[in-house]
């Protein structure tokens, strides 16, 4: 088991952001985390990464309690792509992706392994063509791909991404989901928050549905996205459409 969340709770002041969530993230699977705005999706990822202190429960990573992990070793094990991330100086793309190798590097020049990881990550994210361009010369979608390559370059065995599909065109959204799947095939435990339910349903092995900080459903997409859950959590229902795109209508 890659990551085990054991009854975790997080409190923001008086407001509970997560209440008693338990889940297990397995190696080789893509887990989609869905829920309305403010359901606690980002907080769940941050809590599992140790970026958010818990008011209750424990997190285990690769069989070891999160608190027992040295900071550097944990950074090599878990890669995280925060929501709406930016590289705030107009650096060349290649150097931004190289930042993903920081947990593996000291002060010196990047090793051959670092360079290969960067080139590979850029290639996989379809960003090799603009490897030498500067971040400020790219579109929002291209920057999003570069930042995703940054997270991939780490080569960690757990990969968390918060809303990686935002800003991407439909073709690159699908490519992103393929990438996540490919990453999972290498044995990585992937967890990703998504707003697009069809994307989540089609490309995730497992789905966690959050509402108001509680875990409402946890299982294969067909179970987790049952009509009753959709109605209860999102107040929507499947709508028949002639394009077969998997449309929804508001309830």
């Amino acid at each position, binding site marked *: 088991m890659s990551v085990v969340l054991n009854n975790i709770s997080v409190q923001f002041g008086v407001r509970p952001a997560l209440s008693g969530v338990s889940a297990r993230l397995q190696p080789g699977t893509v887990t989609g985390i869905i829920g309305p705005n403010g359901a606690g999706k980002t907080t769940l990822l*941050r809590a599992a*990464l140790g*970026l958010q202190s818990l008011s209750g429960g424990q997190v285990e990573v690769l069989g070891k309690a999160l608190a027992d992990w040295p*900071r*550097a070793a*944990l*950074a*090599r094990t*878990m*890669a*995280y*792509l*925060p929501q709406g*991330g*930016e*590289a*705030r*100086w*107009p*650096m*060349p793309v*290649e*150097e*931004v992706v190289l*930042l*993903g190798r*920081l*947990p593996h*590097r000291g*002060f010196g*020049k*990047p090793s*051959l392994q670092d*360079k*290969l990881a*960067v*080139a590979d990550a*850029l*290639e996989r994210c379809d960003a*090799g063509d603009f*490897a*030498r361009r500067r971040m*400020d010369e790219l579109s929002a979608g291209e920057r999003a791909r570069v*930042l995703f390559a*940054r997270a991939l370059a*780490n080569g960690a065995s757990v990969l968390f991404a918060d809303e990686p599909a935002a800003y991407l065109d439909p073709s690159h959204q699908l490519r992103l989901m393929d990438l996540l799947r490919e990453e999972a095939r290498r044995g990585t435990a992937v967890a990703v928050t998504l707003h697009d339910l069809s994307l989540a349903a089609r490309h995730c092995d497992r789905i966690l549905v959050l509402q108001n900080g509680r875990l409402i459903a946890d299982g294969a997409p067909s179970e987790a996205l049952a009509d009753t859950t959709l109605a209860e959590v999102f107040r929507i229902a499947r709508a028949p459409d002639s394009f077969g795109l998997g449309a929804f209508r508001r309830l």
Partner: protein
Amino acid sequence: MDATNVSMFQAERFSRGALWIAALAVLAAGFALASFLIGAADYPASDLLTGLITGKGAAGLIAQEIRLPRAALALIVGAALGGSGAALQGLFVNPLAEPGVTGVTASAGLGAVVAMYFGLAATTPWTLPAFAIAGALVAAAILYALSKSGAGAVALVLAGVAIGSFATALTALALSFSANPYAMSEMVLWMLGSLKDRTLNDVVYALPLSVVGLGLLASTGRGLDGLTLGEEAARSLGINVAVVRGRVVVGVALATGAATAAAGAVSFVGLVVPHLLRPLFGYQPSRLIFPSMLGGAAMVSAADVALRLIAPDGQLLLGVVTALLGAPFFLWLILRLRREP
């Protein structure tokens, strides 16, 4: 792109960086030598250089007691301010951050003035820099809080204006209470910065304190690189963001405090130098901190030479020259930043 391309790109980049560092070092040394050789007393270079070693005669006295401290302090002050500017810009991911603009130098100046004009500096030679560093620390601590709350460019510069004006007002207040009749006229010296009439005693404290401060700043390069991706991503990359912030704050306070105790409030060096060096070394903070120290040393030495060529009578102050160059540059930077999204 394949791996060979990547490695070629990086190798080429590295050696070019090393060349530029060497060029900056030569430039700084050249200006320092010029600063040593040019002065009110017109001695030939050979007399001054032999005098520096032997210490004999009038030339020896001038070389060892006046010219050497002045040239050395120009290098130390420049390195301290250039390095502090690069680190602050890295921490705030903001090209407008700098010890002068953020009010750190003005607060250090206040500390120095309090130590000097209330007779505290006379007790031990370390009191003056200690007070200047304490003043700088207060301003830097406010910056720490600002960076923790994720303050943007505007908030940072406005806070700098407030801190700077407050420190300047308190400096004026302190001087008006002082028993020294020349205090008010000397205030100008503190507010604009000068390397006039410095002695080797000033070098004795400024050098080690700046070295420790700059060492702390240099150690933050990797962390500041990570912070360019934002705090969350930096933490997930294993960077202890609180430690990086703390080191920048203490390092800037030590380096800027020591520089200000020796030369008064010299502004804009930390603003101009990193910006000029970015096209040569790239945007990554880790690549800029050390070159900015050398660049700052070159710039302050050059300014010191320039002001003695413009006004050999010694009436022109160092801070006037750096502000004449730096302030229009600051405005230009703001205009440019406003145009970019």
